[in-house]
């Protein structure tokens, strides 16, 4: 096709274009195949069929007798049956689903005998890990945005206390490794706070929340810089126009500057949120069983690193891609005002 067909951006496609599309697919498929071929050479056995159980699996639940005796009576109660085991004065009742019942009235039972057995669907460890990663990331994003919003406003404040506090916070957080920050939150601040709480007889804060705090503070510093840049990118005339109408600087910020700035900073914020989801994989080191730690545990027991680590990467991609699509949707629809 020498004339070429027009594309969405209006430039005509020539034959060379399709050659390079071919090159792209050749390279992608080539790399994937080489990898597969290499695994054949080292006798790696792919067992994808064993993966679904880590998401959802059927568990056999058995109801066992605790005492010895005869099955004295079986009574119906909705779709459950109550099995009454009795010997002399000792009597115990076990609820069993009607379909799972395995004993009859008059049967003699030893301790540990199965009275009924039935299968039940359970959520697997990878699913739990995925859910925890999602939960931790979302909470951290929400707090990160709140911290970042106030951090950014403080950063451009004329008040030296606010301004210098914001600069100190941003530079400290951005300048030190997240891993170290997580250690500090958990082993230093966590120990201090939980010890003090214990002294006063209060409940302990679980590690999850120190992890969330570390992530939120980390993201907050970056969000603060993004917010600052967003606010400063709004033309000075907007402030002047709103102030000349008699608005206070807070009113001007709230009604005129921030709505415009937030719209403008959505793309860099999306990047920051995606980073944060991936950074949550570090939380495994303080015994939070998020997706990466869950995968590591499954790899240890199942010895299937190839399938599991690919899957883990895909699951992160699923989370980040969904988030990125959602933010692009917001940007297009301009739902944030």
């Amino acid at each position, binding site marked *: 096709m020498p004339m070429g067909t027009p594309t969405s951006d209006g430039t005509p496609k020539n034959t060379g274009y399709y050659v390079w599309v071919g090159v792209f697919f050749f390279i992608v498929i080539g790399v994937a195949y080489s990898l597969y071929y290499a695994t054949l050479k080292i006798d790696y056995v792919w067992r994808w069929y064993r993966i679904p159980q880590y998401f959802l699996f059927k568990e056999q639940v058995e109801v066992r007798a605790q005492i010895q005796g005869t099955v004295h009576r079986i009574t119906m109660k909705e779709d459950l049956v109550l099995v009454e085991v009795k010997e002399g004065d000792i009597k115990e009742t076990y609820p069993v689903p009607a379909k799972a019942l395995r004993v009859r009235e008059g049967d003699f039972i030893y301790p540990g005998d199965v009275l009924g057995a039935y299968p039940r669907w359970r959520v697997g460890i990878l699913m739990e890990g995925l859910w925890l990663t999602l939960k931790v990331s979302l909470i951290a994003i929400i707090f990160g945005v709140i911290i970042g919003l106030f951090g950014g406003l403080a950063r451009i404040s004329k008040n030296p206390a606010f301004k210098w506090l914001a600069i100190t916070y941003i530079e400290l957080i951005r300048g030190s490794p997240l891993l170290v920050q997580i250690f500090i939150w958990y082993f230093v601040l966590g120990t201090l706070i939980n010890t003090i709480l214990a002294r006063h007889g209060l409940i302990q804060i679980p590690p999850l929340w120190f992890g969330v705090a570390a992530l939120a503070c980390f993201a907050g510093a970056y969000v603060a810089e993004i917010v600052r840049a967003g606010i400063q990118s709004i*033309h000075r*005339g*907007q402030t*002047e*126009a*709103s*102030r*000349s*109408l*008699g*608005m*206070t600087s807070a*009113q001007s910020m709230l*009604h*005129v500057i921030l*709505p*415009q700035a937030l*719209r403008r900073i959505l793309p860099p914020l999306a990047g920051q949120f995606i980073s944060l989801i991936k950074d949550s994989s570090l939380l495994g080191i303080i015994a939070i069983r998020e997706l990466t730690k869950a995968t590591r545990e499954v790899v240890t027991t199942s010895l299937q690193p190839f399938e599991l680590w690919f899957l883990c990467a895909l699951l992160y991609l699923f989370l980040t891609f969904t988030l990125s699509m959602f933010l692009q949707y917001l940007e297009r629809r301009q739902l944030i*005002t």
Partner: protein
Amino acid sequence: MIDVRNFHKTFLSPHAVRALVDVTVKIEQGEVVVVIGPSGSGKSTFLRCLNHLEAADSGHILIDGIDILNPKTDINKVRAEVGMVFQSFNLFPHKTVLENVTLAQVVVRKRSKEQAFEKAMMLLKKVGIGEKANGYPDQLSGGQQQRVAIARALAMDPKIMLFDEPTSALDPEMIGEVLDVMKTLAREGMTMVVVTHEMGFAREVADRVLFMDEGAIVEEGTPEHFFKNPEHERTRLFLSQIL
């Protein structure tokens, strides 16, 4: 209404510039004062100082008897009484035309949404943009945007209107529509200070013309006097260059 006494203003960055030097002027209620002068003469700075968008080095500015340079003055209260129209319109791009005109009424004047809406529609009709009320500023032409900006300022029921080169950013065919709105305002008795290069407007509407150069008011008088027989050499030179 406006009383400026021995006003000095220096810009420090990027390098020290004496923007206003010993400006003293009195503007009465209902007066239309047009400020002209070469670029860099300090006329825009003078106007912005009247709204305290620029701070002062020394001197006094009394708006309706209130010293706006006194740190104890609630400047927001004074600004609500002084409308300002900018060269680059500065409409709020994320709000509709109607919201542009109602926002400050609700936030600053604490009017109800209905009151603000009525006032806004009345003013938008007055400036000839009633049917575009639900559009966004970027859907309007420059002239229409500037008329919305005037309606936005008028919605606060200001006692004084300041115009900072309101037609300088407009295509020539749109200048007339904005000037017409300003002429109507002048006829209705609004106190106006207008920085402009539109000599026709000055001649026709102004009660008084101020000529500024190098931060000082060089000459002032009626348009009649000003355009026919200017006294000052610099005024004559300026007029010969632009007319």
